[in-house]
């Protein structure tokens, strides 16, 4: 790194600067990230393999949804007492994954964590695609998805309105707001990058498309002033928003009177679990981007290491939640709470609880080791295990319905082929959308990275966006 002759407002340790090596300047940063979009030769062959596989799963999704629309939700394994089944498990799983993107883009921005700049763009894309996948499940579960707009308070001939005291209606508002705000936050961040692509592309079609998307952005100082302020306030409002979304999702359960659901620990426990699984997904996406696209200068070992530490920390919070649940059932002296806990641990679905504990408590302990955190392969494997564990967490919660108050209410739940096809299909939908994003949109914010460069290389010494806003 070059010596800094100008005074620094806030020194940042070098390993935390998003750009390592000190060999980059404003132009090379632009080329390194922009060329992935502008130069087809930069697309690695792994892109095509992954796209082929994920597109097959996307076709499976289309098939499963078409079959569902023809035959109805009876093709799924859902029935009373377990009327939600996979639909809500996958909804909560996907939306939880999305939360890490907002945490990275908004909360870490407010905390002046400049290292977020290397990962916020693709993490925000992950959020948007994950929320899209999440949204498909409640929509399909409605049975007649084409009437989805009945969820919103729209004047209608029957004079009936949604029940605003129901957490399911809260959920509609929370998820809609979350999707909209995540989308505009992402787009606002993209406008200057689209302008860079518009000026950098040699193709006429590219110039028209990126020119339209950039809205004619020309980097005016007046515009930047407003831009930074809007960006900062969006980060400020996204922070309580992201916490509220998973809180509201947990209300879907906690407002009911089902034993082990009716618990005040649910909101923080759900939010921690969301961030836990979201960081696992960021690592799963970050490792291939780093290795396949040669983004090692921007997504450094240090970034993956920090993500792994956040994953370990939130994982321990989640595990605290598991032990709290058991403790509360013992301490409450409620025989229903105790019996349901016993059923959860040793009942017909007890195996899923122990899968959960293995995946979310035992395996992540490996992350205490620096050597494992610094090993791409093991980090990738542990992240997948964590995602499986978080899926099991929602499975365990949802399956509680098969063993609650009275034995006459007991039942069994088995997913069918169509449940699996829809779930695996959304994985294909997500991966396909993400790959298209990587191909056509800068995967790292070029504009924000420029500010992170040292002054000698043309940047502002890691000056974060929030310090310019007024």
């Amino acid at each position: 790194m070059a010596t800094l002759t100008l005074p620094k407002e806030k020194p940042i340790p070098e390993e935390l600067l998003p750009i390592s090596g000190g060999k980059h300047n404003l132009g090379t940063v632009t080329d390194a990230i922009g060329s992935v979009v502008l130069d087809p030769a930069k697309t690695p062959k792994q892109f095509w393999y992954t796209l082929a596989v994920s597109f097959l799963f996307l076709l499976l999704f289309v098939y499963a949804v078409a079959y569902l629309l023809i035959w109805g939700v009876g093709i799924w394994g859902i029935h009373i007492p377990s009327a939600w089944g996979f639909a809500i498990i996958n909804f909560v799983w996907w939306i939880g994954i999305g939360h890490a993107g907002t945490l990275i883009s908004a909360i870490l921005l407010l905390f002046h964590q400049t290292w977020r700049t290397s990962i916020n763009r693709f993490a925000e894309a992950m959020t948007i695609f994950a929320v899209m996948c999440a949204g498909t499940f409640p929509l399909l579960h409605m049975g007649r998805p084409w009437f989805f707009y009945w969820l919103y308070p729209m004047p209608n001939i029957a004079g009936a309105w949604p029940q605003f005291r129901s957490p399911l209606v809260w959920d509609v508002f929370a998820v809609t707001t979350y999707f909209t705000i995540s989308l505009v936050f992402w787009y606002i961040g993209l406008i200057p990058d689209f302008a860079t692509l518009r000026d950098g592309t040699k193709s006429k079609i590219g110039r028209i498309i990126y020119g339209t998307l950039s809205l004619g952005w020309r980097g005016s100082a007046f515009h930047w002033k407003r831009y930074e302020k809007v960006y900062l306030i969006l980060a400020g409002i996204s922070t309580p928003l992201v916490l509220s979304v998973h809180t509201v999702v947990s209300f879907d359960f906690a407002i009911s009177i089902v034993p082990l659901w009716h618990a005040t620990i649910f909101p923080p426990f759900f939010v921690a679990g969301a961030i836990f699984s979201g960081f696992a997904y960021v690592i799963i996406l970050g490792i291939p981007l780093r290795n396949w696209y040669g983004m090692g200068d921007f997504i450094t070992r240090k970034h993956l290491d920090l993500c792994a530490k956040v994953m370990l920390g939130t994982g321990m919070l989640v595990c605290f939640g598991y032990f709290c649940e058991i403790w509360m059932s013992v301490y409450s002296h409620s025989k229903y709470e105790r019996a349901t806990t016993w059923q959860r641990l040793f009942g017909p679905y007890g195996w899923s609880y122990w899968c959960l504990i293995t995946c979310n408590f035992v395996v992540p302990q490996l992350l205490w080791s620096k050597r494992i955190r610094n090993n791409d392969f093991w980090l990738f494997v542990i992240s997948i295990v964590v995602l499986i564990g978080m899926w099991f967490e929602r499975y365990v919660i949802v399956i509680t319905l098969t063993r609650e108050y009275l034995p006459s209410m007991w039942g069994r739940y088995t997913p069918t082929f169509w449940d699996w096809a829809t779930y695996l299909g959304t994985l294909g939908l997500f991966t396909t959308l993400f790959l298209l994003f990587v191909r056509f949109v800068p995967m790292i914010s070029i504009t924000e990275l420029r500010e992170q460069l040292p002054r000698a290389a043309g940047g502002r010494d890691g000056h974060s966006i929030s310090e310019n806003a007024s």
Partner: protein
Amino acid sequence: MSEHANDHANHHDHHGGHSGSENEPGLFGILSEYETADGLIAATKKAKAEGYEFMDGYSPFAVGDVADAMGYKRSEMAPVMFFGGLIGCLAGFCMQWYLSAYDYPVNIGGRPYLSWPSFIVITFEMTILTTGLSGVFGLIALCGLPQPHHPLFGVPQFDRASRDRFFLCIEAEDPKFDAHKTMEFLQSTNAVSVVEVPLT
């Protein structure tokens, strides 16, 4: 805050390039190019000290000091987003109040129709939604975007404003503008290049 700069910010965005000039017909302004952000900041301060008012800096990332130097220290976005959020907050709560207590009252175990604690979640979400949307649409509207055409886009060097160069444009509308003198002035600011920007 300089009132003038604020007026200029709006004026500039709404009419930029299309209003022509009394001083120099056919000229949008004079554009100088710098290698660093600090070069642009210094030049902006110098131009301000020289008495120029109608100018704008262009940079590939936000350099807050440039707008500060031009006297535009605080943007309008905070009040726009505050009032946008306030409208959403009130509209969200009143909608639930009206629909649950007057238009479609449902008596559930004698509980109050205006059960405000259960309306907080949607009120909150509506506040966030309208704050965010008013910020985004307010930003686009106040900046006069989308604006696909601008005289500056006709300058070949200006392509690098979104890459690695910093520009200052003193506009022909400025009362003090004089094609010859302004060009000489900008050449004295350590600029890499100084060019005339024709109105297109």
